[in-house]
């Protein structure tokens, strides 16, 4: 068995643009599932609206492609009604943090036993590149033509503050680390949140000086700062540059959870 067996071959070709990072994240997630030895009939993927939310449509299990921002509320119903199911949510930065922000913090607070993989491309890709709640300050998008003036959300800090049991952040460059993080999320009872920064050459990269797909991946690689190193830098009183992406496991704890398989 390979993780490739989890794909719906009859749905190809997929809708993702050339150079999109989403496929990498789906591969990592399915590879982690393969290690968990989950059965297809016991696994449900739920998503909202956006590029990332198209992922469940390419996977052979039962899947619910829902309304914009509401994936976690639907997933809560699925998981609470049948805790025997493994429930995985694919979402994006706009879906999760803008229109779905309230559902996000309450799913974290309930610490419901689902795993959320957020493909953060820092932009609304499907609608053509509008600014999102994670678009970095100063970045260009079709609705921030003079540079984004707003402060972006730190999705992981949000999840930690709201009560999620497991939180980690990686990028589409860090495939092995990401796979391990998703697996750790599956293994941790309660709400698990894995943020994966992804390149979006079509809507983000071309407006923000990443002329090649590899330019943005290169940027994520060179700006990734392991959490432990960040902590050491802070301890030593060193300055942590603002544009660094803190990656690694950011929370793993054992708060009481809901909807855990009996």
């Amino acid at each position, binding site marked *: 068995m390979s993780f490739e067996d989890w794909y*719906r071959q*009859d*749905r190809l070709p997929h809708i993702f643009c050339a150079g999109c990072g989403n496929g990498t994240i789906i591969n990592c997630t399915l590879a982690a599932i393969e290690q968990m030895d989950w059965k*297809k*009939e*016991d696994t*449900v993927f*739920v998503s909202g609206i956006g590029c990332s939310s198209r992922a*469940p*449509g390419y996977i*052979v*299990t*039962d*899947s*619910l*492609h*829902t*309304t914009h921002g*509401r994936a976690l*509320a*639907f*997933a*809560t*119903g*699925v*998981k*609470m*009604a*049948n805790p*025997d*199911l493994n429930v995985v949510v694919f979402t994006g930065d706009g879906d999760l943090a803008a229109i779905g922000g*309230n*559902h996000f913090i*309450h799913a974290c607070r309930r610490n419901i036993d689902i795993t959320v993989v957020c493909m953060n491309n820092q932009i609304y890709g499907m609608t053509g590149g509008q600014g999102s709640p994670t678009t970095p300050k100063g970045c260009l998008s079709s609705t921030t033509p003079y540079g984004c003036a707003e402060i972006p959300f730190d999705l992981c800090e949000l999840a930690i503050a709201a009560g999620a049991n497991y939180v980690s952040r990686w990028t589409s460059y860090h495939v092995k680390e990401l796979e391990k993080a998703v697996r750790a999320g599956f293994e941790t009872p309660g709400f698990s949140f894995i943020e994966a920064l992804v390149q979006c050459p079509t809507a983000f990269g071309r407006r923000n000086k990443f002329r090649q797909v590899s330019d943005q991946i290169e940027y994520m690689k060179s700006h990734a700062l392991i959490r432990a190193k960040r902590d050491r830098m802070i301890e030593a009183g060193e300055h942590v540059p603002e544009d660094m992406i803190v990656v690694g496991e950011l929370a793993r704890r054992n708060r009481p959870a809901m909807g855990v398989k009996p």
Partner: protein
Amino acid sequence: MTRTEFWQGNIACAEGALAAGCRFFGGYPITPSTEVAEHMAAKLPKKGGVFIQMEDEIASMASIIGASWTGSRAMTATSGPGFSLMMENIGYAAMTETPCVVVNVQRGGPSTGQPTMAAQGDMMQCRFGSHGDYSTIALCPSSVQEMFELTARAFNLADQYRVPVFLMADEIIGHMREKIIVPDAMEQVARKPLVKGTLPFRPDNDLIPGFPQFGKGYGVHVTGLTHDERGYPCATNPNLHEALVRRLVDKIELARDTIASDFEIINPGAEQVFIAYGAPVRTVQQVLHDRLNDNIGFLRLRTVWPFPEKALARFKNVKQFFVPELNLGQMAREIERHVRVPVVSLPKLGGNLHTPEELESALEEAR
């Protein structure tokens, strides 16, 4: 065996749901429907069911749809402001053919309006409130007994036709207390399961596909996008979209006579005929009781959508229909579409019922 109780309408609604096998309730507090949620919170855990208070009505509606796909009979209860928030996912339930029950204990609107006063202002919203064309089923109880019975029926209709079914109650019926005869068990119509190997959204002759419950190995993809019979998104094919939307409407409209056959007809030979649903039924019943010799006709609706238009033709001698409603004539307009005689709309806003005198003077004026 039955037992007699003295219950509030909202409690009867919750008990009707439990008797129908409802095992999932996702809701959010709102006057005047909150007693439904409170009663479910107390009772569901003891029956092995799930009660969850969601963060808003959008999430409540989403949660019951998610639960329904695992095979659970699921419901929520709300009132106007919450009903407006639910519209988004009500459309999703219609498009994905998800069985679920939504109770709306109507209060005065628009907006926050009159939280503790009765109204029937959401009758068009429950039919047309979400964007796009679709059809749904709406039931209107006019007694505590019917709060129980119609809630239970709503689950059977939802499972049979795979639509969201609305119990369109109002504050008066929801908060009224009266005698109720509680049956020991309610008949449950099971969801027709999908035959393994058939396409998940290919309809049978009744225009309804079998239900592929999550966790049973169907591997079904459910999407609110226009989808083909495999369930796969196919949003740019005009013919496919038209066929899908027409089927979603036709599966209800073509079954209209079966779904909406539960009306009551009194004095079909009368020239003056009342049509009512919900709380105004009680005033009409008082008028009929007080004026026995007046030969006044009455069409009492229990199912409002799909509208039982054939019931109107049963009044062969009718000269005027009178439609008392706690809104500005929402159903009167629907009735006008189907008849050639005058339809006298008797609207009442503010939260009080029509008095018998008000209805009687309407009869006198028209004579």
